[in-house]
């Protein structure tokens, strides 16, 4: 899975691979359709189970995908079509912009941005402080720090080459991040109810407590529509900070090498790593704020968003190999999980008692 995620983020000329991807994409579509149908079935026939387990199409797509991957397996012919989970979920995020107005973004506001910023940089600082107790290279610590701070796969891919991380170290980090997210995805909604979080509070919590963007959105949507929207806003807040966090991580790695750190062109570094797809999300928000979308058009956009997410999450499930998780080893997982849990616990306290949501 981790290898697939890296090649997905790094792959070249995706358009040229479309023909090869069609068989795998058909499987992805079938899983997504099944998940969508199953949500209606569970909702209609097992209402209590649906309410307790939050078995919506998002979770069902991931579960069905994982079951297929880890039982009967996926033939190599289908593999090329399973690489598009990031593109699909990011596209869903862009279309999701029609659900917000500028006013709703501003309402989340300054306090939340400060909360997100402190959480992200605090996670990196905590990771580098704790890592002295574990046996690992600087490059692995750097990948884990940015991976567990911002949004998993993208942050790891952005950091790895800058700190000369080996491919295995990047795979390891991504596997650890996704394993943490997988556990969080199925436990955080129950914890949210246990602590009596409102949908807004839950969305904010998973927006910083879970790492991988897709898993953030999946957990939010499992809790409720408003939670999903709030998780989306928090996720965007984190994504905007990605280049700054990666720069901070790289500077920490190079702090004993003053020559190398002075050679980094910081503004170029930030420009290179800025996630430009945010621009399209903002265009959708601005268009909606300007009243360019009618109710029916927003409903149609919502349908497209739902399908982009369903297909993206089905791809994630179909590329999640339990054996990758197993082979990831101990130290990095232990350190990553300690930092992940501390971050989630502190974020829960802030969201529950201090954040005006």
């Amino acid at each position, binding site marked *: 899975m981790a290898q697939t995620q890296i090649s997905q*983020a790094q792959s070249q000329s995706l358009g040229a691979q479309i023909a090869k991807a069609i068989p795998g994409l058909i499987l992805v579509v079938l899983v997504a359709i099944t998940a969508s149908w199953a949500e209606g079935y569970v909702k209609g026939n097992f209402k209590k189970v649906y309410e307790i387990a939050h078995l919506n199409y998002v979770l069902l797509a991931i579960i069905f995908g994982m079951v297929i991957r880890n039982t009967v397996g996926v033939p190599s012919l289908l593999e090329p079509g399973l690489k598009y989970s990031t593109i699909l979920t990011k596209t869903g995020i*862009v279309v999701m912009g029609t659900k917000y107005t500028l006013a709703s973004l501003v309402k989340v506001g300054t306090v939340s941005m400060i909360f997100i910023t402190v959480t992200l940089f605090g996670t990196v600082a905590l990771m580098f402080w704790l890592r002295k107790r574990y046996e690992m290279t600087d490059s692995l610590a750097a990948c884990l720090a940015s991976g567990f701070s911002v949004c998993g796969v*993208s942050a790891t891919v*952005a950091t790895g*080459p*800058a700190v000369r991380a080996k491919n295995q170290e990047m795979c390891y980090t991504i596997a650890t991040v996704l394993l943490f997210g997988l556990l969080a995805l199925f436990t955080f909604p129950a914890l949210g109810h246990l602590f009596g979080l409102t949908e807004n509070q839950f969305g904010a919590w998973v927006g910083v407590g879970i790492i991988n963007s897709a898993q953030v959105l999946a957990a939010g949507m499992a809790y409720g529509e408003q939670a999903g929207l709030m998780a989306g806003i928090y996720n965007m807040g984190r994504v905007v900070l990605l280049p700054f966090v990666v720069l901070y991580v790289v500077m920490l790695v190079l702090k004993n090498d003053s020559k190398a750190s002075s050679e980094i062109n910081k503004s170029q570094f930030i420009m290179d790593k800025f996630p430009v797809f945010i621009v399209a999300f903002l265009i959708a928000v601005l268009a909606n704020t300007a009243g360019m979308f009618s109710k029916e058009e927003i409903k149609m*956009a919502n*349908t497209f968003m739902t399908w982009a997410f369903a297909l993206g999450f089905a791809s994630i499930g179909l590329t999640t190999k339990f054996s990758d998780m197993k082979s990831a080893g101990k130290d990095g997982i232990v350190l990553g999980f300690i930092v992940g849990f501390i971050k989630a616990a502190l974020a829960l306290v802030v969201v529950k008692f201090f954040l005006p949501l």
Partner: protein
Amino acid sequence: MTEKNSCAVEDSRAADRKVRMQDYMVIGLGLVLLVLSKVMA
């Protein structure tokens, strides 16, 4: 700049370019879906 650092910078730039290409694809797809939602509604 040392040769080792120069290589790391080049690798980093190459990875950034690939992620950027992916982002451009997302922007294109996203905008197409926004237009489609106006046309099909």
